């Protein structure tokens, strides 16, 4: 081999790296389709159908705002996909670190931000179809989106943000423990977050202590904003609060991940 043709130019920039790694992640997902793309869709749809059908008469309770429980449950279940669909990317990242593939990428000048962002986006892109399908199933069960197409777009944007923010917890656990299996232990967290929120019933029907807990539960903000977009009435304040909570959570988790990543790959 001659040295006549060395690299065309300096290494790809961060955006280029994110794009290349994201394509790699998505393609890799097609070789493990059940885990990568199947699970995020199956769980929320099963929950929506089961809950909407088995608890349909909950709406008979005095003070319940709607008479169709599926309509009440569809928005939070759409947001639930942001919790049940993430985690795969964190495990994949740890496998890459363990196999030395991350070192290979570092030697090719891949920045930590490129690696982390491409993994977070992978989770988001796995979750969005699940959210859309859940919404479609909800529509079949009688749910109408109060805010129309604009509402759907805002809902999906909020879902993307929530998936990225919540998924950050998985990355923190994975990188903090340096164990590819550790994120699995985080999976049941979505259960208390659901029950300690307004997902199943309006605030007026919740016990006092649950009300108190739900105010500190970030998922409550996602549920309330999603409902204002789908079930109505629309509240710009609720939507803004949800985006603010999601952004703060994203910032905190990703900054933590950046630090933990350096530790995990031996930079520190």
């Amino acid at each position, binding site marked *: *081999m*001659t*040295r006549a*043709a*060395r*690299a*065309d*130019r*300096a*290494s*790809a920039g961060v955006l280029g*790296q994110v794009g*290349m790694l994201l394509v*790699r992640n998505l*393609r*890799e997902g097609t*070789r*493990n389709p059940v885990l990568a793309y199947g699970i995020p869709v199956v769980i929320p749809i099963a929950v929506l159908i089961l809950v909407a059908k088995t608890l349909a008469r909950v709406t008979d309770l005095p003070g319940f705002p709607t008479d169709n429980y599926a309509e009440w449950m569809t928005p939070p279940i759409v947001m639930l996909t942001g919790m049940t669909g993430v985690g795969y990317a964190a495990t994949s990242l740890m496998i*890459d670190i363990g*196999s*030395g*593939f991350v*070192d*290979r*990428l*570092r*030697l*090719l*000048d*891949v920045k930590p931000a490129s690696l982390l962002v491409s993994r977070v986006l992978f989770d988001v892109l796995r979750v969005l179809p699940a959210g859309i399908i859940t919404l479609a199933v909800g529509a079949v069960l009688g749910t109408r989106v109060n805010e129309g197409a604009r509402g759907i777009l805002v809902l999906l944007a909020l879902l993307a943000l929530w998936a990225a923010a919540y998924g950050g917890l998985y990355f923190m656990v994975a990188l903090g423990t340096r164990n590819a299996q550790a994120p699995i232990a985080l999976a049941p967290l979505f259960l208390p977050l659901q029950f300690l929120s307004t997902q199943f019933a309006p605030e007026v029907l919740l016990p006092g202590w649950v009300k108190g807990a739900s105010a500190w539960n970030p998922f409550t903000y996602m549920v309330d904003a999603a409902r204002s977009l789908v079930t109505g009435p629309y509240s710009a304040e609720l939507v803004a609060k949800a985006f603010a909570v999601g952004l703060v959570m994203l910032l905190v988790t990703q900054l933590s991940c950046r630090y933990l990543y350096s530790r995990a790959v*031996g*930079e520190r």
Partner: protein
Amino acid sequence: MVTSETAAGPVPAIEVRDLTKRYRSSEVDALRGVSFTVDEGEIFALLGRNGAGKSTAVRILTTLLAPTAGSAAVVGMDVVQQAERVRRVIGTALQDAALDDLMTGHEHLVLAGRLAGLRRRRAAGRAQEVLEAFGLAAAADRIAGQYSGGMRRRLDVAMALVRRPRVLFLDEPTTGLDPQSRRALWALIRSLCDEGSTVFLTTQYLAEADELSNRVAIVHEGVIAAVGQPRELKDRWATTTLRVQVGGSEPGEMLRRGLADHPVSAGAEGWWVIGVPGGEPAIAAAVARLHAAGVAVERIAVDTPTLEDVFVGLTGTEIESGPASGDGAVTAVRKAMGLGTSR
């Protein structure tokens, strides 16, 4: 060959000064004040046992790990201060093949090329070129998880070459390979060197260091015990042994008279064993002195030391045995003297 030069002269491919590394989790220094230089176009081997500090050295030189103290530069660029620039001129294959089991061989190489800055079409072309050079073209579209150990190692080294590196780092490149694959990789490393690349490899195989490298550094417990050409190391740090069978009634006495300053001892089956300091160059002189002293030499054999002798002499420990080193060393003295030979 591309040679870097400054006003002060040619820049070494690798320059390491007082390099020290202590891991946070350890109370022992993995490297302790290590210094050496590697010239451009050399094949340089770092030889040592497991845990001697070889991989730590590679990780520092390839910018993956920060040293605790000391400095290291690759083609004149500091591996800490100018890490990005260093990465652009090196290729690296670490100890374990760093592959994604769900990606094909072709996808690995295209991704490496694209991340290295090659445009899409060029990266694909380069990937094909490297796959063919490494005998992996037929398996290009199979995922790496289906590759054999040898194929994984070849793909890993191939990835290191996508960027056409000036300095290639190979951390135990042949560990776990069958003899055929090992020889093939050696041939490839030699050809890279012929084309001007510098190769820095670590190994625990004595034969690999001996046959492949221009110079060897022996590292033991984080310290460089010796650096030099394999022949130099043997001459300096181990003793060549001359074995002779001689006629006459008191052969031992005659030998001790002829070579008074050499240790002489009786061996098995009528052989006398003489230690000859100074290595092979001193053998002919020793034999000539025996003739001059009237010793009737009937048979002669020379056992040249191996790197293992050097390693044991320097470190007091044996290195793990590696692949067979081949024929061993029979010097030209036997032929030149026209005497019977035996080993």
